[in-house]
């Protein structure tokens, strides 16, 4: 049992769990069986079994039963259910479209019913059920209240509200100006730009996967892997000093993680050239600047030249294409930086402390 727990703890470490979730993310879109009712039940049972058995572990129980963490546990299960539901409906509709039938929604769309009583009563029932759920929840679980505020004693770890923990987790990889300001700002900008960037006329008003594969994959990658998974890591698996702890690991305040991260400039100038760091920031950081410049300015042009990128460019037109691809590349900068950190202990691509400009 301990060996198994140790193994799961090991797998939970971000470099492995993130890689596993990338593999899982790719796999769930390959296997249509997963979205059938049987697949759904199997996933639910596996999740419940894992959670139920893990509750026997005192360290796991301690962290998931913290009052403010209970909603997040619920969210993981609820979100899982709705991902399954939407994909189940999408796959069913795709099957209908393949055989030339109208989608399920289309078969009913001409059918109109009176709002009173059909809609009004289901709304009423929803409200009653929700009220009961909220009242039971509130009686069963007391809202947290810790010691009175004390600005001179910082708890360790200090955590932001749970819905911002994905951003706090990004602080491991990026400076605050990126993780706390630019990237969240671009999430909002990207969401707002979405309807204007997506020129695909299909899939409007019904569930489908095959007609909107790229859009759904990009959105789910951002929402499930980058947003939700980082929240789960930040909430359940980050302990004192923001060190990582596996789900069954004790939160040891004395755990020490060596600070071995180095900048790209140090890797190139010192390790590769055996020279020293140049004094001025421009020659020192030139490689990082060129790398990021190429990533953001040359790569979109190259992608537009051939293959699927070319078809995007032709469908979307230059303005939509360049805005869309810039937003996508910014999003992908996060997983890229994560892997650079895990593989080369990379601290910054560009490190110009003179202007607080570190990426």
């Amino acid at each position, binding site marked *: 049992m301990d060996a198994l727990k140790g193994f799961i703890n090991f797998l939970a470490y971000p470099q492995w769990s993130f890689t596993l979730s990338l593999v899982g993310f790719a796999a769930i879109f390959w296997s249509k069986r997963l979205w059938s009712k049987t697949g759904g039940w199997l996933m639910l049972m596996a999740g419940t079994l894992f959670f139920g058995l893990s509750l026997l572990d005192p360290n796991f129980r301690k962290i998931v039963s913290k009052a*403010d963490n209970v909603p997040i546990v619920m969210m993981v299960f*609820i*979100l899982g259910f*709705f991902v399954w*539901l*939407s994909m189940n*409906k*999408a796959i069913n509709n795709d099957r209908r479209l393949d055989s030339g039938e*109208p989608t399920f*929604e289309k078969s*009913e*769309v001409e*059918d109109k*019913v*009176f*709002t*009173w009583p059909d809609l*009004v009563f*289901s709304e009423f029932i*929803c*409200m009653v059920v*929700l009220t009961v759920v*909220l009242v039971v*929840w*509130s*009686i069963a*679980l007391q*809202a947290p*209240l*810790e*010691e*009175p*505020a004390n*600005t001179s*004693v*910082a708890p360790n770890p*200090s*955590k*932001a*509200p749970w*819905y*911002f923990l994905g951003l*706090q987790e990004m602080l491991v990889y990026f*400076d*605050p*100006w990126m993780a*706390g*300001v630019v990237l969240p700002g671009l999430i909002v900008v990207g969401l707002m730009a*979405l*309807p*204007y960037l997506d020129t695909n*006329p*299909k*899939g*409007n*008003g019904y*569930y489908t996967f095959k007609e909107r594969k790229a859009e759904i994959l990009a959105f789910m990658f951002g*929402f499930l892997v980058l947003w939700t998974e980082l929240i789960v890591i930040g909430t359940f698996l980050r302990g004192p000093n923001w060190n990582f702890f596996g789900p069954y690991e004790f939160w040891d305040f004395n755990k020490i993680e060596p600070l071995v991260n180095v900048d790209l400039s140090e890797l190139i100038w010192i390790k590769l050239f055996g020279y020293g760091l140049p004094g001025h920031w421009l020659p020192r950081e030139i490689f990082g600047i060129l790398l990021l410049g190429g990533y953001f300015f040359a790569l979109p042009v190259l992608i537009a030249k051939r293959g699927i990128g070319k078809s995007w460019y032709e469908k979307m037109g230059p303005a939509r294409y360049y805005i869309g691809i810039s937003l996508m590349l910014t999003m992908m900068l996060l997983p890229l930086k994560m892997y650079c950190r895990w593989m080369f202990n990379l601290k910054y691509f560009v490190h110009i402390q003179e*202007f*607080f400009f570190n990426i």
Partner: protein
Amino acid sequence: MLKKLQSGIVKSQVWKSIFRVGIPTDNRKRAMAMLGNVALHLHPIKVKKSGLRMSYTWCMGGTSFFLFLVETITGLLLMFYYRPTVEYAFFDMVDLREVAAFGIMRELHRWGAHAMVITVWLHMFRVFMTGSYKPPREFNWNVGVVLLVLTLLLSFTGYLLPWDQLAIWAITVGSNMARATPLLGAEGPGAALLSIGGTKLIHVGSDARFALIAGRTIGGGTLIRFYVLHCVGIPLVAAWLMAVHFWRVRRDGGISGPM
């Protein structure tokens, strides 16, 4: 006897003046019921059957709105007891739990808030998965994105109000980000550019974080600022945008469905 009483009430002038239609028994009255009631007239008279299915809508938009109402009502009740000052805030929290009647108002408010964040995300997810942001609903998706941000800000400003360790340190971590705002944060890239003759315009006493928390550290100024934003400022904007959001659902052709 009861029947007589019932018909007496239903036929009285007072009753008729309030419920003009009565319980609808035919299609004309069903339409009249929807038009004659201020709460119900948000709805159309008829809806697509495909849009009525819970498996299609997940009822998440409606649930988010319902939770907003729950937060408004429980928040109002909490405001009777809670004083947003450093001296009283924490102890009013203790009293709310130990002394006040219906001592679960704070729980309802907090769990409702967490639930609302989740339901708003799920609503967005559903709208995405059904492609309902596509024309003609692009603008309404944008209104929704702003409402999502406001939901998070509402929850964030409310998080400080209990004035316990959990509250102030969560807000400290969150608001420290503002320090690094490009150009406008004291430690943000480019802030040094904004200076006149060597005098810095952006410093810890004038940057984005200072504006957010009304001081160099979290204190009484932050508490009153977050309280006013939480109880008045953001709810007003959110309520207005919700009105626009619901209005546009109707104007853009009702609940989405295949064309």
